[in-house]
Each structure stands twice: as C-alpha cells, then as structure tokens.
C-alpha cells in the first residue's frame, strides 16, 4: 500500500469517499464555448481574492478630511475618507494599484463573460428542459453581478461615480407611490443623505451580494453536475450520454490552466491598462459634474435608454409620474429581466416542445430563435452605444440633436435589420449540404509546372479522432489488457 492508497483509505473509513469514484470519471464535453461560464467563475474567484485585499485598506465613509497623501495635485483638498483611502491603496500600498485595477477589470470581465455565456446558452437552446431552473439561476446571477458592479463602482465616491449614485437616487425617486420613501430610507434622507449610504453600499458589496452570488454559483454548479453538461451533436453522442474528457485528470488540468490564464490576463490588464483613474475625476461634490459621464459598460444600456427617452412626464390628480425616468430605468430593465426569466417557458409554449434536450441546437437550424436573439443583442448594443451620444457628437462633429434622433431611429431599425439578415443567413446555412466529416483546412500548393494542387490538411493536435468510438473512462490502466486484469494497481513505468 502506498501513501495515496492509505490516505484514501483513511478518508473512506470516515466519509466513504470510495463510493465517489464515478465523480472522477465525470465527462465534460469539449467545446470552446463551454469555457465562457468558467471564465465568469474564475473572474469571480479573482474578484473575491482581490476584493479581500482591497477591504484591508478601504474606509467606507463619506466623512470629509483634508487630503495629505501621495498624489500631489490633490493635497490640501477636502475629500471623503472613502476617496482618500482609495487613493492611498492605489499609490501608497505596494502592489495596490495593480490589485485595485485588476478588481475593476475582473468585474467588467465577470459581467461580460456572464452575458456572452448567456448568449451561448440562448442561441444553442441550452435553456430547454431540463435546464430551465439553471437558466433562471443564471439570469439572477447576471442581475446580481450588475448590481454589485454598480455598488463597487460607487464606493470610491469620486466625481463620476458620485454622479452615478445621484442618478440612481433619482431613479428610485421616480417609482410611483413609494419612490420618495424608498430613496429616503436607503440614503437616510434627501440626496446625498446623512452619509449612511456609503457603509450600506460597502456591506452590500463585500458581504451580502457576494454571499448570494456564491450560493447561487453553488446551485448553478450543483445542477450542472446533477444533470450533466449538454453537448453539441456529433459522432457517438446521443440524448442519453455525454462524450468528452473526464474530470480527473484531463478536465482538471485544462480548467486549472484556464484559471491561471484568466488570472494572468486580468493581472496584466490591472498592471498595464489604466481603468477608473479616480484621481483625475476628483472627489465627489454634489454641485460639481464633469463632461462624458459614463458608467461602467454593463450599465451602458440603461444610460443609453435614459438618454434617448423622450421627455414624457405625467402630471395630474395632484401627482407626478416621471415616465422619462421610470420607463427607461425601472420598467424597461424590469421587463428585460422578466422576459429573460420566462423565455424557456414562452418558447416551450410557442413550439409545443416539452421534451428533454441534452443535445444542443446549432443556431442555424433554429432561424426564428436565432433571429430574435440576434435582434435582441443588437437592440441592447444600440442602447449601449447611445450612452455615448455626447462623445459621438463631439467626435464626428455633428449636433447632439442629430445623434440623439439617429439613435432613436437606430434603436428600432438596427434590431429589425439584424433580425431579418440573421434569419436569412440561418436559412442559407441550413440549406447547405451536411456531411458527418468535420471540416478540415486544405493546403493549396503550386507545382513547378504552374499547376495548382489542393490537398486536405491532416488532423490538427486537439482534434478528436473521428475514427474512434467513445469508450467509458477506464478505471484501471495496464501495459496490456492482461496486465490490467491481473489487478496491478498503479501505472506501469514506461
């Protein structure tokens, strides 16, 4: 008995780990698009690790102090403790700047990876039975990621994020009946309130929301393991099996590699690409504002919607309903996420398809869904672009009026156009002849006589060998079958 066997035996006596061997054989299908969720997961890990580091230095307080720190241009200015401590951890804590910027980048990548992961699920029909619940957990995660991103972005209390907070307050205020009460309860009074919002945002950002996110990620992965990963159609793949690489060791090596790659990219971004230089914006003062006030990218669609919304305000019966804010900033996102939540059920109702699906769709064979999804993506992307109306007007030297009306038009035209074109492309692609052979690149060469010769390139490393039928993960591996059957435990040496 070697030490590994002894350790496993010790654990098995107490926890029965031997019964869990099949977990090691768990198959993860291989496809690049299945990495998107993992990128989100590892960004979250990076967020937690870097966030803990930041929390060791950050002071969640709007109390104003005179700045005496390392950043000379602001010395002697009145700034909040939150702002001063953010400057301190950026300039005076060794490694702090990289980690703070990495945290911000990781947040942007986190939401981005979730959004693209969600698109993958949508376009391949991965939300269908039996995965509707996991789809809904995923939507909740997207929502929480956006909320926590906004909270974290607001914490340093710089001029740009403070203005964002002011807008958030006005959005809450716009809710009929309860808006002013909600806003006052959250902020401890009329904006900017009595300063209580800062520690409240802090505890939400570092404890409450992350715990919910972590718990939901747990549920997300539990359901993934229980239902096993969906797979694309292919040789030997059916609704009742899953073909790919085993958890131990192949998937583990690859996913650990991905973890380090994600961490490495984020660390590099943190060190090399400046993000949110709050010392350039200055500390927040409620009466100050700056040009080109834009939130982080994942809030852009809401900002854009607020910009292109006409100025419709309802007044009557002694009350005001600020539709110009309520509609784009409360009802619109509410409707968006409701639609996301119910989509699997709506689609099942429309198509009448209530079967279990473990094989994913190729988007081209579902032209209607694909066209609708593409139109949706185009719509939100247009709104996102509309959050830069002022910058675009300046850049192209056209009037703000032209840019605004263009976006009002584009927000309708672009989705329709993208939807129609996508539908057409899907139909064309689906009509093309299909072979079971995977696509191979060809090598085109010219002979000395000037003749062109085309030959198929060989298999590239990483291509699954198409001549092999999938087999179960071997529990025992021997030099030969006979050797394995004699019960040799370990791998023979080469």
């Amino acid at each position, binding site marked *: 008995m070697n030490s590994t066997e002894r350790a496993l035996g010790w654990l098995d006596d107490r926890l029965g780990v031997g019964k869990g061997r099949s977990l090691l054989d768990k198959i993860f299908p291989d496809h690049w698009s299945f990495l998107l969720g993992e990128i989100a997961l590892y960004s979250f890990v990076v967020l937690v690790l870097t966030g803990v580091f930041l929390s060791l230095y950050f002071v969640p307080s709007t109390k104003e102090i005179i700045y005496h720190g390392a950043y000379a241009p602001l010395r002697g200015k009145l700034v909040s403790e939150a702002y001063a401590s953010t400057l301190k951890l950026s300039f005076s804590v060794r490694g702090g700047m990289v980690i703070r910027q990495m945290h911000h980048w990781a947040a942007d990548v986190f939401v981005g990876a979730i959004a693209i992961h969600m698109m993958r699920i949508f376009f391949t029909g991965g939300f269908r039975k039996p995965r509707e619940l996991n789809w809904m957990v995923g939507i909740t995660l997207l929502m929480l990621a956006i909320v926590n991103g906004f909270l974290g972005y607001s914490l340093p209390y710089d001029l740009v994020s403070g203005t964002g907070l002011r807008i958030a307050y006005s959005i809450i205020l716009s809710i009929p009946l309860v808006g*002013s009460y909600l806003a006052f309860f959250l902020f401890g009074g009329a904006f900017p309130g009595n300063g209580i919002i800062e520690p409240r945002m802090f505890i939400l950002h570092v404890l409450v929301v992350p715990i919910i996110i972590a718990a939901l990620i747990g549920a997300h992965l539990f359901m993934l393991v229980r239902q096993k990963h969906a797979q694309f159609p292919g040789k030997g793949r059916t609704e*009742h099996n899953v073909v790919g690489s085993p958890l131990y060791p192949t998937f583990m090596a690859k996913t650990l590699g991905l973890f380090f790659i994600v961490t490495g990219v984020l660390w590099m971004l943190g060190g090399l690409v400046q993000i949110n230089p709050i010392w350039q914006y200055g500390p927040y003062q409620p009466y100050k504002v700056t040009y080109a006030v834009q939130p982080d990218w994942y809030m852009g669609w809401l900002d854009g919607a607020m910009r292109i919304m006409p100025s419709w305000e309802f007044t009557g019966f002694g009350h005001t309903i600020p539709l110009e804010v309520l509609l784009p900033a409360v009802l619109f996102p509410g409707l968006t996420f409701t639609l996301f939540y119910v989509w699997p059920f709506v689609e099942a109702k429309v198509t009448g398809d209530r079967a279990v699906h473990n094989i994913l769709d190729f988007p081209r064979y579902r032209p209607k869904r694909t066209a609708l999804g593409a139109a949706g993506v185009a719509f939100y992307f247009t709104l996102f672009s509309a959050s830069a109306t002022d910058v675009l007007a300046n850049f192209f030297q056209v009037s703000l009026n032209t840019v605004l009306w263009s976006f009002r038009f584009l927000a309708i035209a672009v989705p329709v156009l993208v939807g129609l074109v996508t539908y057409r492309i899907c139909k064309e692609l689906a009509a093309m002849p299909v072979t079971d052979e995977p696509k191979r690149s060809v090598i085109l060469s010219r002979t000395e006589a000037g003749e062109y010769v085309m030959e198929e390139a060989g298999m590239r490393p990483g291509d699954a060998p198409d001549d092999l039928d999938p087999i179960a993960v071997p529990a025992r591996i021997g030099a030969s079958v006979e050797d394995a059957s004699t019960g040799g435990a370990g791998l023979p040496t080469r």
Partner: protein
Amino acid sequence: MNRETGVQSDGDRIYEPDYVPGHASGDRPMPENRDEVPDSPLPLVALDDPHLMPAAKNVKHTERWIAFLIVLASLGFAGYGAVYWQGGQPQLEGLTLGIGLLSIGAALAAWGKYLLPRGPFVEERHDMRSSDTEREQMAAAVIDRGKLVMRRRGFLGKMLAGAAGILGVVIAFPVIRSLGPLPKLALDKTNWRKGSYLVTIHGRKIKEDDLEVGGIITVFPPGYEGNAMDQTVLLRASTSPFTTKAGRETWTPKGYVAYSKVCTHAGCPVGLYQEQTQQLLCPCHQSVFDVLDGAQPVFGPAPRPLPQLPLMIDSEGYLRAQQPYDQPVGPGFWERS
C-alpha cells in the same frame, strides 16, 4: 497505541473497545451484513489503446513547449518578486506576474489538451425523472402527511397563518422603516428663504459687479454651501433686466438670472453653460435648457424647466433672493403636484 487494548502507550485511556479486538485493525474482513456492492467488472484499458494516446502529434515537441512555458512562468514569478523588492511599479508588476500566470496557465492547459488521453470518453446520462412509483410515493408522502398535520385542525392552521402574517408586517418596521427618515416636505423645500444672500461655495456674498456678462457661478444660501438641493447657477446674461417668462419681470436685476442647478431629469448638476446660444446643458443625459426662456428644456429627456430663483439687489449692492423657489427643485416624484 496498543491495538489490543485501545490504550495509548503512555497510559492515557482513550477508549475501551467494545468489539472484537482483531477487527480494530485496518485489514479486518468486511462485516457480513454490510451492503455489498457486487464486484462489477471495471473497464480495463491497455496503455497502448488509441483512446489513451496523447492528442499531440509530436509529443516531444509539445513537451519542450511546456517546459519552455514553465521556465518562462518561473522567470515571471521571480521577476515580480524583484520588482516588488525594488519598490514596485504597476506596469512592471503587471507584466512580470502576468507573464508568469499566463505561462503557467498555458502550460497546464496544454498538458491537459495535448499530453493527456485524447479520448473520446463517454458516460451514460441518467434520467432526471424518477419512476412512476417513486413519484407517487413522494407525492403521497407530502400530501398525506400534510393532511395529517392539518386534519381537524384547520382553525389552528389559520391562527398560525395569522400570526405569521402579523410577524411579516411588524418585521417590516425594523428592516425597512428604521432605515431612514420619512420624506415629509424635504423634497418640496430648499433652504432658500426670502432675502437669502447668494454666497459662493466659500461663503462669500455675491455683489452686483462680481460677474461679467457671460459669467457663471454656483451659489448657495448662507450656511448651506455645497448643499445638493440648494445649489443654484447664477448667470449674467446681459447688463439690464430681461424677461424670462411673463410675470418674472423683476427677477433678473442687472441681467442676473438664477436657476436651480439640479437637473429636472435625473438630478445631475446642470454644469455646462454655452454663452453664444444662452443654453445650460446637463452632461449626464444631455438635457438642454434655454436661459433666456425661463430655462425651458429645448432638447433631451428633461421634462420641466429648471425652477428660477427670483433675485434682487439690496441697497448695499448684494444679490439676494426675493422669494424662495416657487416649486420643488430636481427630478419628478410621486408627491410632486
């Protein structure tokens, strides 16, 4: 420790074994009554099976690449240590540790992708759906036992629901009502009073000659410098009074005009002033207000003009408010009439 007696050699009694001593040892036989898993034949695969071949075409080549990546990673890590030791520098820190992490990640991923068995491997799925019997039993257990709880105790159940309802209501008070004050009239009123001086952020009173035509400054009532609700833009649009709206003829002495600086759309400070067109612009969502026309919004999502503060110049030449704002400032809300 002595296996026979369960007594540690130093004499400390840990436990008294109450079963056959021989079975305490690790190599004891399986107890008879234990649920025995039949020895299912494990899949046996020979090392030369094509499924176990690495995916790499040229294994030696791949191994060399991975070795190179690991060396690069070590250099990156060491480089980061050196940069840190020298006092740190964000770009170099990012480059060194970034290269280290990326290389180690690439090495691991390549190891998994190219050197480990190429497969493909397969695993059967099990239906999520249980058998009909299992489903019936589950439903029966939930429903029948539930009935057992409530049988002939419907009234108790209603009482319980009532108590829970009361708890639900009262618990809302500490978790919601305690959070902050009631709005009352806080949104309707500012700290501007009849006769308030116009002061700068530093508390300096504004005099009639302080601004040139085209000049702009943010003012507050004395004692509320920097206040988010009271912030007001003071502009000088001309040298003589002008009329922004009928009935406001006396509000602009010597061409001075004052508007609330809180945008009526989403509350950002309306901070940009273009003298040529006499427009105020909010940089958040690009609402544009016409200074000469009572700050009427001419563009963008703002629904209402910025409230105008009636001005006067007192006998000493100081600018003061004739009256407070005649309406709530800032964005709309339900109670605004």
